């Protein structure tokens, strides 16, 4: 349909030039593209506005990683932010301490509630639970028949009678579940508009009668800008606990998910990936994020970019390891890179020999504060100290600590880390010979 966002961003930013730092000016054009991409993906415009501000704040001032283009760098920031905003994966619907657990599905007409009810029933069945389905939609023609047919497919009993009220069906279902030892009870409610007060009152009455443990809003992945209003109103009317995004098996970008999360703050528990009763999957924010910005290739792009960074970094490293010249200055450069790229652990994981290093310098992991403190310490050293840290004695240590606004303990800690890293590198050097025969991808091309 249209070229991917990553391509467009690259084109724009590469035209601006190969500057090493993202500035407000040089990323404005890129942010315009990001805005369009997100709007095209049906993220609500208010959410897009907030998102762009966030990305601008994060991106401006970032150094562009050596072998990333500025465009790729922006893509990376956008992608990371999306993943963060979309929230964690694997949200579980906790079972109540006093069964039956009651789960209510609510949403607009045709969003997928009845189908999802059956999918959930099947899912809980496979988890060793014994669910009960309640057909509480007494409005749509043959809604009860639909759930009964689906109940048969998934082997889960269904209670419901189109002549009763929705509240009666739900109360009966919960009582029956308690008697028969069934849980969870999954309530399939009628589709309704978020502005239909009469129908919202029905939901409120159901809620008051059976006090569901989880109220799930089923949102159609094809939904446009209105998703925000819909979620807001349903949340205000009855309160929602989690979201299920249905119909993600098409080519819709699913921006509604971001809108709904933004406005309710609730987790996305599952996604519907088809019409069949087994087409339900746990939610993965990373997948949706790459889909949202319209680039199935975003991951591979960033991965590729990072791989090339690694190749270069690794090449340098390898040389230094070989010559045993990895100085504190190199260490500082590494720290800088780490600060730009994310947790050290992750970076190490991407290096060809990273698996061997991973997890070892535990203290270095994470904590941005630590990294900047280490950087400050190294900056306060003389070039001679950086090259031969063994000359650092008590008085030098005090001077460095004072100069960097840290403590002598901090300086010691850094030196210990550095020593540890060097030791590890010597170990790697020994390994290198063995690896040269091949077998470890990436290593060979870099070292020889």
């Amino acid at each position: 349909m249209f070229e991917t966002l990553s391509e467009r961003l690259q084109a724009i930013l590469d035209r601006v030039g190969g500057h090493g730092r993202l500035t407000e000016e040089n990323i404005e054009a890129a942010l315009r593209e990001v805005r369009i991409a997100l709007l095209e993906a049906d993220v609500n415009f208010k959410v897009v506005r907030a998102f762009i501000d966030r990305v601008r704040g994060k991106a401006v001032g970032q150094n562009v990683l050596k072998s990333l283009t500025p465009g790729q760098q922006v893509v990376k920031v956008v992608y990371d932010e999306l993943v963060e905003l979309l929230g964690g994966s694997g949200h579980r619907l906790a079972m109540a301490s006093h069964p039956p657990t009651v789960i209510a599905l609510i949403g607009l007409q045709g969003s997928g509630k009845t189908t999802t009810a059956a999918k959930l029933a099947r899912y809980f069945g496979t988890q060793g639970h014994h669910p009960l389905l309640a057909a509480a939609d007494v409005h749509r023609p043959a809604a009860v028949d639909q759930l009964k047919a689906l109940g048969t497919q998934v082997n889960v009993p269904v209670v419901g009678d189109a002549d009763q009220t929705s509240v009666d069906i739900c109360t009966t279902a919960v009582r029956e579940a308690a008697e028969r030892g069934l849980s969870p009870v999954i309530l399939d409610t009628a589709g309704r508009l978020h502005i239909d007060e009469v129908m919202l009152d029905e939901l409120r009455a159901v809620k008051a009668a059976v006090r569901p443990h989880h109220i799930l809003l089923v949102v159609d992945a094809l939904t446009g800008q209105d998703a925000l209003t819909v979620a807001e109103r349903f949340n205000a009317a009855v309160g929602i606990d989690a979201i299920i995004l249905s119909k993600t098996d098409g080519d819709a970008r699913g921006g509604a998910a971001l809108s709904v999360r933004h406005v309710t703050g609730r987790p996305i528990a599952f996604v519907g990936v088809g019409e069949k009763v087994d087409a339900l999957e746990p939610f993965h924010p990373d997948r949706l994020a790459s889909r949202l910005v319209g680039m199935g290739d975003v991951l591979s792009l960033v991965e590729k970019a990072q791989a090339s960074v690694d190749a270069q970094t690794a090449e340098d490293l390898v040389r230094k390891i070989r010559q045993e010249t990895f100085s504190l200055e190199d260490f500082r450069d590494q720290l800088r890179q780490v600060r730009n790229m994310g947790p050290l652990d992750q970076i190490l994981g991407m290096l060809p020999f990273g698996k061997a290093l991973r997890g070892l310098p535990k203290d270095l992991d994470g904590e941005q504060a630590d990294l900047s403190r280490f950087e400050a310490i190294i900056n306060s050293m003389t070039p001679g100290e950086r090259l031969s840290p063994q000359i650092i004695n008590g008085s030098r240590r005090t001077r460095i600590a004072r100069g960097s606004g840290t403590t002598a303990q901090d300086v010691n800690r850094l030196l210990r880390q550095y020593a540890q890293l060097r030791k590890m590198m010597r170990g790697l050097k020994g390994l290198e010979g063995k690896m040269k025969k091949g077998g470890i991808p990436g290593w060979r091309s870099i070292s020889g």
Partner: protein
Amino acid sequence: MKFLASLTDRLRDGLRRSHEFLGGQLDELFASERPIDDSLFEELEELLIAADLGVLVAEDFKHRAREEVMFGTVTRADQLRPLFRRFIADTLRPAAQGLRLEHQPAVILMLGVNGSGKTTTSAKLAAQLKAAGRHVLLAAADTFRAAAIEQLEEWGRRVGVEVIRQESGSDPAAVAFDAVRAATARRADALIVDTAGRLHTKSNLMDELAKLTRVVARQMPGAPHESLMVLDATTGQNGLSQARLFHQGIGLTGLCLTKLDGTAKGGIVLRIHRELGLPIKLVGVGERVEDLQTFDADRFAEALVPVDQ
């Protein structure tokens, strides 16, 4: 089309809520004291985007409005409201077309993604044609979804229209074939075929639909007379992809825009119409049989950009 005309008054009724939503904001924007500046245009663009017109159409309208200001045809902020309304109405006026019902029987296929409102729209249309004195049949060609046949049968009972059906799981093309034969034999004026919802990206399901269409066409040259894609007004930009692929696969004759009684405005039809030239033949504004209207571009534009509050 005339038989539906008396009902079009309900359109305004059905769309009133959209006025309430967008109207207040537009009022502020178009207040005549306000200077015409960048921020005004940005806000306007966002209002159009909020109605799912899509950022490209919204930007286009914004640029055109800027031109009008440049040329001096628009000098006050309060002239922008009618201007945007005109843009929308002018774009969509050619889209307002009636159903082609001349042939006896007129075969009408209801197509679209899952849950968009095909079955309900089929029933509403059947009821209205019947009320207009026509002999109508319904065909339950959704043999896949749980209780889809029962749903249409229940509607058939409610509106007093016979439903041609087979067993659940049978070949939808065979159902359509049966139904066309029945409609011909009974000298029906119209046959409305309700098909299963399917995402436009699923090629096997689209092939199934193409086959159904071929079977009908072979059986009755010229049929189907209408192949309508039923589109939920809450649909975002994906609506374009839906229309494109259904059009490619089956050859659409128009759209039915449903669920306009909510707060969504269905602005994506503008983009669809601009790109594919598809007319909008019916509008759904509720769940009752009366809640089906013909499309009126001016009223649609008014719903998006209300005249007064």
